[in-house]
């Protein structure tokens, strides 16, 4: 059953056409690798899904309902989460503040004053989430800017997973990570799939993509040109689809060497 469906999405910035009618379908529990050269429009496409950008034309539906008119907050409420390449963390705020940003639980102060953010509950849930991810942070009451890159990544992931997402979009989640941390992100993607959560993974590391996805969609010059079943494809085929066929042998050789 299709969870998210994009039909003929177009987006241009001024005179620059980035997306020329992209079609994409994601079913529940499916892990999709979205690959393509730099400037192919991967991040732009994802931002039209989260609502950060508004598509100029086309239709996006979630469970059959159009979400085109919803703002990013409402789309998050429907269960669309994204982990951004730059992580989008507020570095001077602590872990719980980042995880709950925009969704803080509130209570009454001394039973009278309304609107007090319930920090105790936030801290407790944040700690639970971090523990569930199997991560270790020095203290959840420290500003996240004082953490290492991998630890900050954990906070960004925890933020995407705390509110029962249906679809998690990850934009280059492993680009800045050490080998062991990469493995734990891939593990995480598998366990999300097991829970029936869909994942769209954007990555330049094709080995990771081939290792963890069900399907690979290649975006080339603003169009989703190729759709490959991961089980039945090879590195060579993926690379050839990304670069467009001509320099295939050379590019594939380079990729498997690197």
């Amino acid at each position: 059953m299709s969870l998210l469906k994009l039909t003929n999405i177009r987006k241009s910035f001024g005179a620059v056409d980035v997306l020329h009618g992209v079609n994409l379908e994601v079913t529940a529990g499916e892990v999709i690798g979205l690959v393509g050269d730099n400037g192919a429009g991967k991040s732009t496409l994802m931002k039209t899904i989260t609502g950060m950008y508004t598509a100029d034309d086309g239709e996006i539906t979630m469970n059959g309902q159009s979400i085109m008119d919803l703002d990013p907050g409402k789309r998050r409420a429907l269960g669309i989460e994204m982990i951004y390449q730059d992580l989008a963390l507020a570095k001077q705020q602590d872990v719980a503040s980042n995880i709950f940003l925009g969704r803080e639980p509130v209570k009454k102060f001394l039973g009278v004053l309304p609107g007090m953010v319930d920090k105790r509950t936030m801290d407790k849930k944040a700690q639970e989430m971090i523990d569930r991810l199997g991560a270790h942070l020095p203290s959840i009451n420290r500003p996240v800017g004082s953490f290492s890159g991998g630890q900050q990544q954990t906070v960004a992931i925890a933020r995407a997973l705390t509110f029962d997402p249906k679809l998690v979009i990850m934009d280059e989640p492993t680009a800045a990570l050490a080998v062991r941390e990469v493995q734990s992100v891939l593990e995480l993607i598998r366990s999300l799939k097991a829970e029936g959560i869909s994942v769209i993974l954007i990555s330049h590391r094709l080995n990771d993509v081939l290792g963890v996805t069900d399907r690979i969609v290649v975006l080339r010059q603003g169009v989703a040109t190729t759709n490959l079943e991961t089980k039945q494809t090879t590195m060579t085929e993926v690379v050839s689809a990304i670069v467009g066929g001509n320099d295939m042998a050379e590019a594939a050789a380079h990729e498997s060497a690197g």
Partner: protein
Amino acid sequence: MTAKPTTARNTSLFGWWRSAQSASQERLQLRLESLVVLIGLCIVMSLLSPFFLSVSNFLNILLATATIGVLAIAATFVISSGGLDLSLGSVMGLSGVVGAYVAVTIGAPAGFGVLGCLVAGSLAGFVNGFLVTRAGVPAFIVTLGMLGLARGLALVISDGRVIYGLPPELIYLGQGRPFGIPMPVIILIVTALVTHYILAFTRFGRYTLAIGDNENAVRTSGINVERHRLILYTLSGGLAGLAGMLFMARINAGDPTAGITYELTAITAAIIGGTNLFGGRGSILGTIIGALIMGVLQNGLNLLAVQSYYQQMAIGAVLILAVFIDQYQFRKEAKV
């Protein structure tokens, strides 16, 4: 708060200080250092001058701090969101003139005079916020322009003259002393408590700090950053209007030249109180302590009959010292 692992260090004096520090930071959003500086300053002043340590002198300090304190609260909101409001002093002057114009020249009831101050300030703030968020002009330029616009408008409305002769109810707001406490001090304390609650404990306050920290992170969370900024600038203007009302009521006149360079003093108080000039961090209690540090310094130096030229130098030095200590602490924390 959260169950932290108790280390052996917590029994030592250093550990005690660290845990007190983090508790006050967690529960009150207040850095203890600034409180220590304030108390230290009070001790030094009371040793140097026999007149310093008395209830009436403390009330004097609070009274002198009231107007600047309210302006500094406004500055804290805007600066901690990564913005800047250079028009605070001018908007304060404009508000006082509008209030006096409504209450004296038009002769409306005193309540409308108060309303006039608040509305004039909020409107100026709204214009600032509108230009910053919708027209995309940098806050520095918009509020610098407003600094001139509001001052000019105050002079136009009052025809360059001071508007004297407020109704007694208005004068009471500036000069009345219920239970012996000056009204401006009461208004400052109430305003500080309410705004501290908002900035430290509500969603609105958290978004304010998060916007100053990483606007994009807030936007991706689905919060309307532009609308939030617009509200912040309007709030800032409204608080400047309140400061204008306090000043007008205290001097029993709408003075178009009131509040010149006050924005700089207000920003100084906010920064001494621990607000990050580039946004992301700030607390109203801290700002009030910052304003009091300046008030105590000024009062003490007055009692010691130090020339006012030196007072300006002292405050400038305190500002630089405060930011130095803050940055030093921050770097040390980031390293751990």
